[in-house]
């Protein structure tokens, strides 16, 4: 079985060991020099060509088994997908070519950029030795070993390795210089087999200046010093594929984990206290995973490195992980904890599934991503609680559904498209060619699907299967394990379902077909009636298959009915688009209303049943309560049912559903229910926060009949403000004018901050934002609310708090921005003075002044992550757009320039992008393009493009002043020039598609016919050089390739077909 699977890959050799030796690193010149030695075992008889991956490298010489200066050729077609003088500007042809070129260098097709021709003398040796064997079996040919040594250098890399070199010469800046691997494109920094299914053992040797530390995959076996140079030697005994080889060099400070000696954390100079605080928990997920999988981590150690400007927040590698330095936080900051810990737990989960057990090809990307996320979420569930887990799960599902409906249906199986006409969207392509947005949502879907498999086969069996996979993989890591056993280190959807079916009697094929091989998710519309005569609930479920990204779902679904006598679950089978079910009811209508009602959680509660329909014993009904299916749900029941559900159901998902539904029922009862839930301290804090928002929503839709203060406001006063004398009530009502509240100390003052209860802190932080959304009859925010917010800011007192109030202050500023409305703004004056001093609403002007103060103050005394600055910039943008204050665009340029903290830059850039969307400003557009082209921070480039995709200046060739040939040209040349950064190129392609569609942009003149003919000829030419993947041709090709070069084989094939 194993050999068979090895043969699926058309590579003609097996890589058993690779040595990567970096002999010189220069930060000033931003270059690396080194050599690599690959130990290859040929699998075929006539082994005369070795194809390897290598990009943006200079190859100096190749040596095979002491045979020096072996002939090689280097051809990277992806550098220039279309030639400069090509007049076409349509994506269709571009994508076709890109896909072909990817296949042309795809290591799993046995291809590569670097072709090494084995000299005849060596080939003869091989033949001699093989003739001595009678068998021509593959097993015997493995006896011959080729040692291929390649000398290379890497200069000014665009991707693959990132050099962080500050401009100035201060001591700390010099100490902070570092470099690290940016992702899983190993071919960008050393010659290798850049495939996920070619694991090998590794020796990594790096020579650097004495002051630098080297962190690389594997175990540090030796460290020698010679003439002020230090040589680190790492050995990775657990086979890993080249993409998971990580490297980081710099003067890092380090901390060994206090609980587990195997874990070491590294950070840049000056951040050691943060590092100690942030990483103090890392042993927990490790122990948890090991206990869960009943298998130990196969790497001898684990290193976490925190660097600046990485391309993603968290990049896992074999036995190490690289994180963004922004994940570090001091013990005084509360909210950073959740995110940082999740990221670190995810990187650790990858040490089991992801880096250790890898995907066989990009088609199986979903499985590994899903498994890693699945393990992560199991840990976070344990660490942060079940409610948080379910909340995140629900959010993920909503994201997936929204993306499938609005953007593009997700098919998790990234199989190559059979015919080219199927390219209807840039994301319907091979795995390496997806946009980051698509991959992000696909990862969430992958997690949900893995969770579905877990539900389907049961947690215990799932763990047995994962344990089995780990055990199998472990045997491949043993010293004397045969090479062929290394195929156990990678899994595919097929092999996974095979393991499942052998260990259980269940077949997950149908599940995979529904969710993996096909795209879309179902939309269920349900309603019910109660038939008293027969005492049954008549439930009707419809599936809407007409909308985008929908897919009919056939299978079982759980319905949970809460009746007077308790909660009852029914499992129904969805068989058709419209299905009716009759669920027998277990309760009779009661006369005695005093009796307690049992809930699913086992609690018994008293309920106020006066509102209830006396004829019906149903309290509420839930469909698929445990998120077992990825579905969009629309369920109809009376507002009373929703209110009951919100108030008494203990499952937070149910409460969120009810809250969402109650937005449609603005009434006094709803108001009371929401007030009660907001008040109940045993409710999950996210529910209470959401409750505050819904309450505001209800208040706004009832603005005309609303009496009394908002329940949220009085709740806040009661809980977070000092309890007070009789003065307070009068003061609140009278202090509606600005001057009064400023001069007279209001009796109600917010208490000095105490954030020791994190749930209360979150509530205190978020509720002002919800309150600020309140609007009165005139659709403006009531002055009472604005005064309230200003008082909060004024009286904020943090000196006795052991936590930082940075996020609280930034949240208050966000609340101020929530109060802004454009109602009542009629002035179109261009006179700035007049506008600011007379026309502008006093409250708006007050907000403006406050923002400037906070923005300036944050510059003098920075808050954590400049979060106050970020909020202020957002408000400035809003003041510009909504209130019409003419903010100078230079302000945002100022914050977007390199040298500012990256989160601030990102916010400023996002604002600039939104300015383009609204104002169609050509200069700003140009500025953004320049950032995308030249900015040293790659992560920022990614994020800007992604934000542009969300807020494009125009869509699908709409008429717009920016929709002109210059824009087309600019974007097109960007796409062409990002040869080495695939992800940026993919994102740009997505942007191009959003703006111009797949065909030629309308603003360009159409091509004349002669050109078209010329182009067609050229395309034919391409299609002959690179053969399509149909099996017949492939098998022919496979045989032919070993006889001759690729191009010769293709031409032969072409001639025979003629």
């Amino acid at each position, binding site marked *: 079985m194993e050999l068979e699977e090895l043969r699926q890959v058309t590579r003609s050799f097996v890589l058993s060991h690779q040595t990567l030796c970096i002999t010189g690193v220069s930060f000033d010149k931003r270059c690396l020099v080194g050599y690599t030695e690959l130990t290859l075992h040929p699998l075929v008889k006539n082994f005369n060509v070795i194809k390897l991956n290598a990009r943006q490298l200079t190859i100096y010489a190749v040596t095979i088994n002491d045979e020096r200066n072996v002939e090689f050729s280097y051809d990277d077609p992806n550098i220039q997908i279309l030639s400069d003088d090509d007049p076409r500007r349509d994506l269709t042809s571009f994508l076709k070519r890109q896909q072909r070129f990817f296949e042309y260098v795809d290591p799993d097709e046995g291809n590569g950029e670097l072709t090494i021709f084995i000299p005849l003398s060596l080939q003869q040796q091989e033949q001699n030795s093989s003739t001595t064997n009678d068998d021509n079996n593959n097993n015997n040919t493995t006896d011959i070993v080729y040692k291929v040594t390649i000398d290379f250098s890497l200069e000014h890399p665009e991707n693959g390795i990132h050099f962080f070199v500050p401009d100035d010469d201060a001591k700390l800046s010099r100490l902070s210089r570092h470099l690290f691997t940016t992702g899983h494109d190993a071919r960008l920094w050393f010659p290798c087999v850049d495939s996920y299914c070619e694991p090998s053992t590794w020796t990594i040797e790096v020579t650097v200046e004495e002051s630098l530390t080297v962190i690389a995959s594997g175990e540090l076996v030796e460290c020698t010093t010679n003439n002020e140079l230090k040589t680190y030697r790492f050995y990775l005994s657990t086979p890993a594929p080249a993409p998971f080889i990580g490297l980081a060099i710099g003067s890092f400070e380090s901390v060994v984990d206090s609980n587990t000696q195997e874990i070491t954390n590294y950070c840049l100079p000056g951040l050691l206290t943060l590092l100690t605080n942030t990483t103090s928990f890392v042993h927990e997920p490790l122990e948890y995973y090991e206990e869960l999988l009943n298998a130990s981590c196969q790497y001898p150690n684990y290193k976490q490195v925190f660097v600046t400007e990485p391309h993603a927040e968290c990049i896992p590698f074999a036995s190490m992980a690289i994180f963004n330095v922004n994940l570090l936080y001091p013990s005084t900051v509360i909210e950073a904890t959740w995110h940082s810990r999740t990221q670190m737990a995810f990187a650790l989960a990858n040490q089991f599934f992801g880096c250790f057990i890898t995907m066989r090809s990009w088609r199986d990307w979903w499985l590994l991503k899903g498994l890693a996320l699945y393990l992560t979420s199991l840990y976070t569930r344990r660490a942060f609680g079940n409610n948080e887990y379910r909340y995140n799960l629900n959010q993920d599902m909503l994201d997936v559904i929204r993306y499938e409906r609005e953007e593009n249906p997700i098919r998790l199986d990234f199989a190559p498209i059979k015919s080219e006409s199927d390219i209807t969207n840039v994301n319907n392509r091979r795995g390496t060619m997806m946009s980051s947005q698509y991959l992000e949502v696909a990862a969430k879907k992958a997690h949900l699907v893995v969770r579905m498999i877990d539900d389907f086969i049961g947690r215990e069996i799932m763990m047995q299967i994962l344990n089995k996979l780990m055990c199998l993989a472990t045997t491949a890591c043993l010293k004397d394990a045969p090479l062929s056993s290394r195929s156990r280190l990678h899994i595919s959807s097929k092999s996974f379902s095979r393991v499942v079916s052998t260990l259980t009697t269940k077949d997950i094929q149908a599940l995979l077909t529904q969710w993996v091989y096909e795209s879309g998710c179902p939309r269920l519309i349900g309603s019910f009636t109660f038939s008293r005569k027969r005492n049954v609930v008549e439930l009707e479920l419809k599936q809407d298959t007409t909308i985008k990204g929908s897919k009919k779902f056939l299978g079982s679904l759980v319905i949970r009915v809460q009746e007077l006598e308790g909660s009852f679950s029914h499992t129904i089978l969805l068989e058709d688009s419209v299905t009716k079910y009759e669920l027998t009811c277990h309760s009779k209508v009661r006369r005695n209303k005093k009796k307690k009602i049992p809930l699913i959680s086992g609690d018994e509660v008293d309920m106020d049943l006066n509102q209830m329909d006396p004829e019906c014993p149903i309290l509420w009904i839930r469909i698929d309560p445990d998120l077992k299916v990825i579905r969009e749900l629309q369920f109809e029941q009376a507002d009373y049912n929703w209110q009951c559900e919100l108030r008494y159901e203990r499952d937070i998902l149910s409460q969120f559903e009810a809250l969402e539904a109650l937005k449609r029922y603005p009434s006094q009862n709803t108001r009371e229910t929401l007030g009660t839930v907001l008040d109940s301290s045993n409710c999950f804090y996210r529910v209470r926060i959401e409750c505050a928002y819904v309450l505001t929503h209800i208040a706004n839709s009832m603005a005309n009949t609303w009496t009394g203060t908002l329940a949220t406001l009085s709740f806040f006063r009661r809980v977070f403000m000092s309890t007070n004398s009789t003065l307070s009530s009068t003061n609140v009502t009278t202090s509606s004018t600005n001057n009064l509240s400023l001069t007279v100390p209001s009796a109600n003052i917010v208490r000095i901050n105490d954030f020791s209860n994190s749930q209360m802190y979150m509530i205190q932080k978020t509720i002002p934002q919800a309150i600020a959304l309140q609007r009165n009859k005139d659709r403006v925010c009531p002055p009472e609310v604005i005064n309230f917010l200003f008082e909060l800011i004024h009286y904020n007192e943090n*000196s006795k708090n052991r936590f930082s109030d940075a996020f609280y202050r930034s949240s208050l500023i966000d609340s101020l921005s929530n109060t802004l409305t454009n109602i009542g703004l009629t002035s179109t004056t261009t006179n*700035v003075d007049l506008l600011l001093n007379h026309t502008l609403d006093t409250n708006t002007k007050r907000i403006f002044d406050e923002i400037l103060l906070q923005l300036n103050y944050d510059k003098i005394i920075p*808050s954590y*992550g400049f979060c106050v600055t970020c909020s202020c910039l957002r408000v400035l943008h809003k003041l510009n757009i909504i209130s019409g204050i003419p903010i100078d665009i230079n302000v945002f340029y100022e914050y977007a320039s*390199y040298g500012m903290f990256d989160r601030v830059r990102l916010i400023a850039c996002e604002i600039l992008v939104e300015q383009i969307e609204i104002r169609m400003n050509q200069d700003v557009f140009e500025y953004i393009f320049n950032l995308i082209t030249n900015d040293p921070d790659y992560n920022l480039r990614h994020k800007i493009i992604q934000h542009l995709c969300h807020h494009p200046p125009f869509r699908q060739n709409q008429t717009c002043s920016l929709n002109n040939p210059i824009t087309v040209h600019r974007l097109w040349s960007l796409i062409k020039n990002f040869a080495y950064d695939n992800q940026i190129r993919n994102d740009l392609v997505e942007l191009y598609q959003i703006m111009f569609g797949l065909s030629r942009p309308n603003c360009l003149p159409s091509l004349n016919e002669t050109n078209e003919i010329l182009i067609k000829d050229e395309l034919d030419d391409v299609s002959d050089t690179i053969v399509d993947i149909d099996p017949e041709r492939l098998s022919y090709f496979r045989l032919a390739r070993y006889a001759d070069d690729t191009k010769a084989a293709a031409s032969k094939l072409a001639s025979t077909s003629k």
Partner: protein
Amino acid sequence: MDNTNTDNPYDVLFERSLAVIIREYGFDNIELSAYHQFLDISNTILRRLLLNVKNFMEIQSRTEPCPADLARSLQMMNVKLSSLQQTYNHPIKHRLRSPDRQTETHPMKLFRVTSTTNNTSRKHRPIYIPDFLPEFPDPHTFISSETYADLRKDYPRVRHLLADQRRALQRSLVKFKLQTNEKLSVINTHGTNINDYYLIKNTISPLPYLSALLPQDQMESESTETIEDETVANISHRTKSLSATDDGEM
């Protein structure tokens, strides 16, 4: 002990050092008889200990005692060495004091003229006071009443003052910085120069993450710093102890 013994300088020294030790343990005062008993006991114990040491020394056929002998004899006398270490490491800081005469602190008297003070009441005096005696002085000189500030009303005032001060500080700091640093106009003025809205110009830092991740806004409260230091110390301490046990096991 007799007075004759005090002539012996060793005894004087011994007596005094014991007194110091007792004082160290928190006694400021001790009765003489109890103290003498202490002296006797200590003397006996020390004598016993030295005898033991001497015996051990002789058994080992040495002429000078070594620490091991002392340790051994202490063990013989049922003294745990670890407890000695503990005593040495944790000197008692708390002191018992002899109950001293507490001086009663009287609340400060505030004098004020009450509403009852008027000319008519001044004339009025009890009948048992003969007429020839002089008049009572003005009531506000001898009627005392205690006044307390109304705390419930005071709290908002304190908070208000605090907040005002903080805001004023912020404002003046920003104003100062705006005057000393380069500034940037927020408003797109279209040529007009009436403008009060400025931002401090950013200083570009080569390592922007340092100021962002190590915020200064919390530094004013010392408690957090000490907490952090403590945790750091704890962690380093833990690593030390861990490595120590590891070595031991190996």
